[in-house]
Structures are given as C-alpha cells and as structure tokens.
C-alpha cells in the first residue's frame, strides 16, 4: 500500500511518515498544498492523509482539484471539530477525518479502514482457501497457524488479496509497495514473491507471464 501524507508541520510530517512506514506502508511526503496536489495527481495512491491548513494551497482546495481526476481515498486532518468544518470536508470529497490532536492508533485504524473500503472489503479478515489475512492485526494465518512475514511480504500479500482475481502488474506493485525513495529497478519484487511462495505455498500467487501476478 502506498500512501501520501500532506502536512506542513515538519515534526508532525516526520512522525506520521515514520509511523506509517513502520506499519508497512510505502509513504510519500509533501509539506505544502501544491506539492501535495502534484504528487496526488501523478501517482495512484491507496490513500492520502491530508492536513486542512496548508501553505500555498489549503486542504479543501487541494481536495476539490484532486477530485476532478482521482478518487483516491482521503483522510482529513483537521484542527477544527466544528461540525460545519467536518461537513465541509466530507462534502469536498474527503472519505473520513480525524480531529487534531488525534491518537496515532486511531489514525492508523482509519487509514486501514479507508484502504479496505476502497477495495470493496467490509471486514478486516480476508479468506483465500486455507489462508486468512487479518488486515487489522497485519497477520497471515494458514490453517489457523500464524506465519512470520516481513512488512514488505505482508504488504504484497495484502495488496494482491485486496485485488483478488485481478491481474496486478509489476509496475502497479512497485508503485504501491515502494515509496519514491526506494530503488524500483532492483529485483526486490521477485525476491518478495518467491519468499511469500515459500511460506504460503507455491500456487498461492499465480504468475501471468508478460502481465503480472494474480491471487486466484
């Protein structure tokens, strides 16, 4: 999963980015509205965490312009808890909001819920044959046994599970599993796919030669 955080407060931006990366997300950062909009328009993020008060271009305007081209789920960070502001945010196309100061746990849960809803999932448990993926606990079980996966491996499994039945290209996987600082020309993806197959079974991930990967 690849996320964008748009926040002008440097300390907050740093800690949010760090927390989300540690959750296994690939995270891009933007510290003003214009940079945020340009990234959001050019990448297919799985979710955007957007502060409302931003220099150059505020959150409302960013959201309004973004909605012309993209349906990326957006979580608003607002310091205003007046319902008028929340209504304005939701009407402008936000999918959810948290009021500052928020608990990190709540923010992470809301981000998970946004991504899940965008993929058409209503539960945080995805079952594929003998394999169960718990997106809240970020765990994968096979026949009731918890498996040890790295954050990247988990992210790969979760992304494919959320797009179950569809062929996911390598480019898409690179875009959603790695942030802008990672080296996308490496064969990291092949390594992760091979590791997942070792842990979950060789036929868990199907390769469509010339197209990409798929979870049947």
């Amino acid at each position, binding site marked *: 999963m690849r996320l964008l955080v748009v926040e002008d*407060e440097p300390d*907050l931006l740093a*800690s949010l980015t760090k*927390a989300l990366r*540690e959750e296994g997300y690939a995270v891009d950062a933007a510290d003003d509205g214009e940079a945020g909009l340009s990234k959001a328009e050019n990448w297919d993020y799985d979710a955007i965490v957007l502060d409302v008060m931003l220099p150059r271009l505020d959150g409302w305007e960013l959201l309004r312009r973004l909605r012309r081209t993209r349906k990326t789920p957006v979580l608003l960070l607002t310091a205003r808890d007046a319902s008028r502001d929340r209504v304005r945010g939701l009407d402008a196309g936000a999918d959810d909001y948290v009021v500052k100061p928020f608990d*990190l746990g709540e923010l992470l849960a809301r981000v998970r819920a946004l991504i899940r809803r965008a993929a058409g999932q209503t539960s945080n448990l995805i079952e594929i044959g003998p394999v169960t993926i718990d997106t809240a606990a970020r765990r994968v079980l096979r026949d009731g046994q918890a498996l040890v996966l790295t954050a990247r491996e988990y992210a790969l499994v979760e992304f494919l599970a959320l797009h179950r039945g569809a062929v996911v290209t390598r480019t898409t996987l690179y875009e959603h599993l790695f942030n802008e600082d990672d080296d996308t020309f490496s064969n990291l993806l092949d390594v992760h796919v091979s590791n997942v197959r070792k842990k979950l079974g060789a036929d868990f991930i199907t390769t469509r030669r010339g197209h990409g990967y798929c979870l049947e």
Partner: protein
Amino acid sequence: MKGFASIRWRLQIWHGLILVLVLAGFGITAWELVRANELRRIDADLSERRSAILASLRRAREDGPPPRGLPPLRGSTDGEGSRPRDRGEFPPPPPRDFRLGGRDVGLFEGSDRNAYYYALWVRDGTELARSAAAPPGLTRPDPAAATNTIRMIGTRRELFEYTRPGECVLVGLDIAPQMAGLRRFAWPLLLAGGAILALGVAGGGWLLNRALRPIAQISSTATKIAVGDLSQRIPIAETEDELGELAGVLNSTFARLETSFAQQARFTADASHELRTPVTVLLSQIQTTLARERTATEYRDLLEACQRTAQRMRRLMESLLELARFDAGQEPLKRAPLNLAQVAEESLELIQPLAADRGLKLGTDLSTARCEGDASRLGQVITNLLTNAVQYNRSGGEIRVTTGTDQESAMLRVQDTGVGMAPADCERVFERFFRVDAARTTGAGRTGLGLAIVKAIVEAHGGTVSVSSVPGEGTVFTVRLPRR
C-alpha cells in the same frame, strides 16, 4: 409576575387604599354637610315655631284677663306678695287656659307631614299646654342641666327655652323621616363612590401597566441575556423619559459586554486551536516512538523534537498571557525618554543572523527619533516587525529600516521586498492568529500573535501602527509614537 410582592401590586394596593381614603373622606364630608344642612333647616323651623309660641304667650299675658283679678303688670300688690322683689322682674304667669293663636296653630297642625309639636310648662313644672302631636312621654327639660337648648331624645329633636318668668317652651319634631331620607341619600353616594373607586383602580392599573411595561421589557431582556443570549436589546420607544434613558444605558452596556464576550470567546477558541498543533505533534511523535523498541539515538531525537514543541508552546503561552495583560490594562510600561533609532539598532543586531541565513540585505536610515516609552517593549515591537519582514521576504531580498520625526510624532518604518498582501489581508493582519496564507508554522518562532502584540504595545504608548502593501513587491509597516 412576582405575586403581591411586586412593585406593580404594591403600587396598585397603595393607590387603591389612598383612593378609598380620599373617597371615604369626601363622602363622609358630603353626607355630614347635607345632614348638618338638614338639621339647620329643622332647627330654623323649630326656632320659628318657638318664637311664635313665645309671641303667643306674650300676647296671652297682655290680652288675657289678669289672674285672680289683678292687672298683670301691677303685681306689687297681688297675692304673690310673699316674693315682692319678683315683681316687675317676673311678669305674671300666662293664663291657665293658654292656647295658641289661630294663625300659629297652623304651624303645628294641618297636614300629616307636619309633625311639629310643642309643650309649655309653667315655672313650677306644671304643664300648661301641649299639642296633640306631642309624644306621650314628653317631660320638661331639667332647668339646672339645660346648658344646651337643643336636645335629642331618640329620634326626636327638641328645642326649648326658659322664659324669664320661668316658663318652659319646647318645640320638637320627630326627625326619623328626615334621617331616613338622609340614609337614602347615602346609598347613591356609596354607589357613586364605589364606581369612582373601581374606575380609579382600573385607570391606575392601566397607567401602572404603561409605566411598568419598559421595566418588564428591561427585565425580560436582562433575563434572556442572563441565560446567555447577549445579542438581545431592550426595545426603546420613548428615548426622552427616564426609563428610556436607562434602557439606552443598559443597551450600550450590553453591547460592550457582547463585544468583549465575543472577543474572549474567539480568543479562547483561537488559543485552544493554536495549541492543538503542538499537542498533535507531541502525541504523534511520542506514540510513534513508543510503538516499538528504539535505539538510544531515536529516543534522543524524540526528546529533542518534544523539546522544540514544548518551547513553541511556551512561546505561544507567553504571547497569549502578554496579550491578555495588555487587554486587561495590567501590563506596566516603564516609560523613559528614548531614541527610536537606538532601539532599532539593538533589534537589528538581534535579527542580523536570521536575515543572513535567508540571504537578506539589511538597509538602514536611522535619524534621531526621540519619544517617551518603554525601551524593551518598543524593542520587542521592532524585533517582531523585523522577524515578520524576514519570514515573508523572498530570499535575497531586502529589509529597510527607517526612523525619523515629523511635527507630531516619532516614526519607525520597516519595509520588506516580500510577497506582499492583498488589501483585505492588510486590514486583518493585526488580528490575533491571522495568517495571510493558511500556512501554519513554517517558521519555527511563529505564533500568529507577533503583529497583535506590536499593535497592543504601540497603542499602550498612545501611538499608531499602520501597514501598506503591494502584492509581489513588498510590505511597509509604519509605527508612529507621540513626540516628547
């Protein structure tokens, strides 16, 4: 309504009581006057009849045959010689067969309504004559106790007189019918009085209502204000009267209260809003770090970040407290003669490193500008303006500081080559927490209160601060302080 303890009811009751007293006094006086008049008329009639009897008696004495053959006026040799000295002083007694003269009888007899009666006694108490209408139990008034010549016996009013020879003449009348007539007259009097009382009370109530309506309005408005609706005002119809004046004064008080409450409420909301960002930063950093085991370096980074945030909160708090003290007029100024140019130089030294970081040129044109004020406060004004000029400048731009004097004031001007502001923003730039773009805290020291503090300090010195700006070219802040 506060029941009978309210001013309205107390006034109404007092008004009613006074009306009752006045009407009762009036009615009693009127009744007494009529009664006295009636009695006077009766007394006059009685007196007329007494005179007639006396005249009749005199005539009888003169015309009638002298008793025991003696001439009535020559009593010195008559059988009453036992009291010779009485002769001449005591005329002879009237004839024993005394009767009223024909004309005078009509005074006592005749119609049924003529109920006058008389009685006549000689000196020794024997009754000489009495009219047919005289009541049976009629007795001669006691000559010794007869200080008053009018007496009331039951409903009978009697007038009597002792003549010099000692006869007693009494005329009387049973005045029961007259008194009954008077009582009949009392009823309309009572009815009229009651009607006037009712009208008076109703009219008084109406007047009271009219007079007290403004008070009720004031009270109901005050109640609404007391429960929190400060936008309420008392409707004023008549501004000339005293209550209108009071309402006007109250209204302007309410307006001041509303403004000050609104300011307070906005300020509190802004302040808590401003505190949210640093608190969010703290929470987010701490919770991220605590999510798993960290290295010592990471903990150190966290603590440093927390320190930065805490310092920012301290700055915000200090600025807020400072402004609150200015608002309350509690911030004392240590006024002393000073030169603005000198104060500006000290501030420029402080800001120099910050300007150098951004590659800004500092230009000065400092001529002597003497005024009176608190040097450290005015230094804060200049530093805030300079910080502002640094933060909003383009990199490689310029800041120009000018001091000088004109006729009335010492002047300080800080000019930058920054992004400038739209005229609408210029108007609001001294407002607390106002920022030109929605940028929050890109610069570390910014609280959004710097220019508000500038304004508060300058105004506490009796000066003015103004701003003019051309978008894209730069902004000029001008401070003017009264000259010494």
